[in-house]
């Protein structure tokens, strides 16, 4: 209960601000309409009319909620207007990219920790890769994968998602694999352990908490990557495509509902990854606060 109250207070504040914003931003249109009709609306009429516009500049929360409900629960999931349909497409690309990011991140981290040469050569490139705006890269990746015969947008989207999600995994895994201190390494040396044994018995298990901590960031980055991959690439399905359509057709409701669908998806993914992290923690002896 104590933890819920502050959360509710914040949510209430956001709603209050949002409603206030809706009123202020949508009022101009109401006043316009009234001026044309030659009427002088009272405050309550203005308030009512700002809250229920079809093409509001800033739709009110209850409108977005209704649109979300409609998009998620009222439409058949196979419908092109269902948010579940679009969400699933984005989800697939996110998961593929997430898997790609994990594999690439872990593989690079292992190479960097085991080889001095890799450390010197790969790490700077990994950092540079994250400074290039992904929006600029996305169309190029689409063109290239198409030229190589990918056939669908799933492959480039997964690559873009992986491109964003490998980095947090890489950075955490390098830190994790290097976390054993001098004493622990000396101990294994006194046992005459081989480098392979040092890696599997000490470095790998020591890095796991770092790995799981990085997954939460990586999955969120992967979702962002998948959505960004849908924006400038002419995609017609996926939450990113939905947002673009909403903006092109001047229908903010579509944008807002797609945005919230993406937020719900992100929350779900992070919740699941957090659960996996807890489970892994318990299996590894638990109780490390």
């Amino acid at each position, binding site marked *: 209960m104590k933890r819920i109250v502050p959360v509710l207070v914040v949510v209430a504040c956001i709603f209050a601000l949002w409603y206030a914003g809706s009123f202020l931003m949508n009022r101009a249109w109401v006043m316009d309409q009234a001026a044309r009709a030659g009427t002088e609306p009272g405050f309550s009429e203005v308030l009512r009319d700002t809250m229920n516009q079809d093409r509001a500049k800033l739709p009110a929360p209850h409108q977005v909620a209704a649109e979300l409900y409609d998009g998620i629960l009222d439409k058949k999931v196979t419908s092109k207007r269902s948010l579940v349909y679009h969400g699933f497409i984005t989800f697939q690309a996110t998961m593929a990219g997430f898997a790609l990011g994990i594999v690439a991140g872990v593989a690079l981290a292992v190479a960097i920790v085991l080889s001095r040469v890799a450390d010197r050569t790969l790490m700077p490139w990994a950092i540079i890769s994250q400074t290039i705006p992904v929006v600029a890269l996305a169309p190029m990746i689409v063109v290239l994968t198409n030229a190589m015969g990918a056939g669908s947008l799933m492959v480039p989207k997964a690559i873009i998602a992986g491109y964003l999600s490998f980095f947090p995994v890489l950075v955490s895994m390098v830190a994790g694999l290097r976390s054993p201190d001098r*004493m622990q390494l000396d101990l294994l*040396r*006194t046992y*005459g352990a081989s480098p392979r044994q040092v890696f599997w018995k*000490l470095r790998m298990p020591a890095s*796991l908490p770092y790995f799981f901590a990085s997954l939460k960031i990586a999955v969120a980055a992967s979702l962002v990557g998948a959505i960004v991959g849908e924006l400038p690439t002419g995609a017609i399905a996926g939450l990113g495509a939905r947002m673009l359509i909403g903006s092109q057709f001047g229908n903010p409701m579509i944008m807002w509902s797609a945005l919230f669908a993406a937020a719900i998806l992100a929350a779900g993914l992070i919740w699941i990854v957090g659960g996996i992290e807890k489970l892994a923690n318990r299996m590894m002896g638990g109780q490390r606060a």
Partner: protein
Amino acid sequence: MTEPVISASDLSLTFQTGDGPVHALKDVSLDIAKGDFVSFIGPSGCGKTTFLRCMADLEHPTAGTITVNGVTPEAARKARAYGYVFQAAGLYPWRTIGGNIRLPLEIMGYDKADQSARVKRVLELVDLAGFEKKYPWQLSGGMQQRASIARALAFDADILLMDEPFGALDEIVRDHLNEQLLALWAKTEKTIAFVTHSIPEAVYLSTKIVVMSPRPGRITDVIDSPLPRERPLEIRDTPEFLEIAHRVREGLKAGHSYD
């Protein structure tokens, strides 16, 4: 007289640092016989830990010779001649106590049945029977250090090298562990090299006390203890004990007069 287990002659180790060379050890010569309990005592920087690490092939002397079981420290390390106990227990948090003790056995390739038998035996030896399935965080600091001693004993090395193993523990726990360590030593007949900075600990435990001093790290006195091998804690109030302690203290003082 049999061959010494550890024999160092004119051992020197110089670290090159930005501020010029540091003489961690200078012309150190010492023989440790089988079954000895040797303590190294001295202020920090006197090279006692460095000396121990040279025995363990964790540091490489720049001059002089050292043999362990008649061979080089490297050969001795590869033959698993010694168990090393560090200042911190250093148990893996993701392994149970049993799993931690099994670690060296896994690395050295003991078969599963033998591993289990050994884990059980050494846990009894350090009085931790029944804690095999517990995780390190569930044990007190003293118990963790006992588990780390069990880990060093698991593979039957004849030599035990201990680097201030009880340094981080409080006095009461330390007394108790000292008593247990003596019992363990009597039971297993190991040769023990033990680094400490506590005078009572050194005198209580050792058959031989090596007093060292810093800059450069060297041996200033070697005291063969006349105390019997059987030592109740009360022995620390006897005149013999206090006399040795006094001599250690004098040795430490003499070392300091050089700065």
